[in-house]
């Protein structure tokens, strides 16, 4: 029965999977995707893309107080940052 069910699932739904941009998933090691985790680190899910880009720019430039984000932000290009920010903005 289970096997039939699984098989049918495949039939009933063509994959709509679209991979997130490179690096997006890595942020969730600290920025919890789940709203249930208690953390001082802000969630990125559903945040304005422009806010994320601005924060990353300021971290990179050393203009925003940071403990690790100044070090991590330097590992992402402007294009990568924009893509990640847009993706998080679209998540719920």
């Amino acid at each position, binding site marked *: 029965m289970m*096997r*039939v*069910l*699984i*098989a*049918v*699932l*495949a*039939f*009933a*739904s063509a*994959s709509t*999977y679209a*991979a*997130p941009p*490179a*690096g997006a*998933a*890595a*942020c*969730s*090691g*600290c*920025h*919890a*995707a*789940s709203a*249930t*985790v*208690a*953390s*001082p*680190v802000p969630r990125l899910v559903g945040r304005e893309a422009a806010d994320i880009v601005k924060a990353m720019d300021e971290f990179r430039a050393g203009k925003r107080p940071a*403990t*690790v984000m100044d*070090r*991590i*932000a*330097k*590992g*992402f290009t402007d294009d*990568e940052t924009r893509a990640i920010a847009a993706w998080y903005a679209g998540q719920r």
Partner: protein
Amino acid sequence: MSVSRRRFLKSAAAAATGLFAPAVIAQAAPRVVIIGGGFAGTSCARALRKADQRLAVTLVEPNATFTACPLSNAVIAGLRELTAQQFTYERVVADGITLLRANATAIDAQARSVTLSDGTRLVYDRLVLAPGIDIRWDALPGYGESAAERMPHAWKAGEQTLLLRRQLEAMADGGLVVIAAPANPFRCPTGPYERASLIAHYLKTRKPRSKLIVLDAKDGFSKQRLFENAWAELYPGLLEWVPLSGGGKVISVDASTNTLVTDFGRHQAAVANVIPPQKAGSVGDIAGVADRSGWCPIDPATFESKLRAGIHVIGDAAIAGAMPKSAFAANSQAKACAEVVAELVNGRMPSAPKLINTCYSLVAPDYGISVAGVYRPAGGQLAEVPGAGGVSPLDAPRATRVLEAQYAEAWFRTITGEAFG
């Protein structure tokens, strides 16, 4: 099960009774089997289900409860209870993942099948191995499984963690504690030094006449200057680090007398913590994906084994280039690997991943330091992105150390939430 999913199953089941049934069977959902329900395996299983609800994801793990290593050094130092380290799989199962409580005992890469300790045989389209580490019981003369009952490694959290804690609690003030640290590579490169720090904190506050020696098989380690500065400030005269060049390499142990032997002498300890050489979990050998180093070489863009097609390796077991063997790295690799596998089973080319690692260490309960890195495939390896990453500033004010100690705990809540919450 969510309402929408239940409704979906219902309509899917109705469709199965129709004329389409034979065609349906031919298009079975892609099957992904994951071995190991630790930080890497569990995160990967959940990310796969999130990426593509069609996938039939099976997670194989023998233990009903996972005991996390990060912050287990605080348990050893009496600052935290082991129960705070323990997690179960209810939420993982609720994501629609099939959890099988067993060990994977045989893998046939040709037939794409896994055999479990209970005799079950699983066929996969893609296999992900995330077995963590095993201790190399043959690597340090005198240090076998029974010696570990006297001289705990506490490098897999659980009973061993509590054993080391009890030994410290039972030790008289003025005793000698010795930690033996292994050569690279091994699980959690900063772990021995965080442990030394927190044991020093315990001794300073509870047994101040005691002494702690770290015998090291290396001449340097991650975040070294940060640790050494903090040790000089917090634990002067209490903690001594002996590098390889100073005779630090332990060449054998004698559990009957709690003695560690180096080329330069013998140290008889009141409490001895032997962190021995390690290798990928033994299923790496069984699958034929571990090389002579004991670890598993992978393609840095896909995590696929360089030795067997269709098998991906993530977490501590993998040779991940510049990435350390950490729970953070395991989680980062797990999610990237899930994206790769979801693309591959859908017949698409995955794009190159970008990964992050951040490892916090507690030098004291309110004194945290960190090392971070950003990684991408380059030159056949996972290499650090130049100009990014690095360690906490050497001259940071104490307030930053306090903040990083808080972030260390917040990170633990986040990462365990990602895997088990």
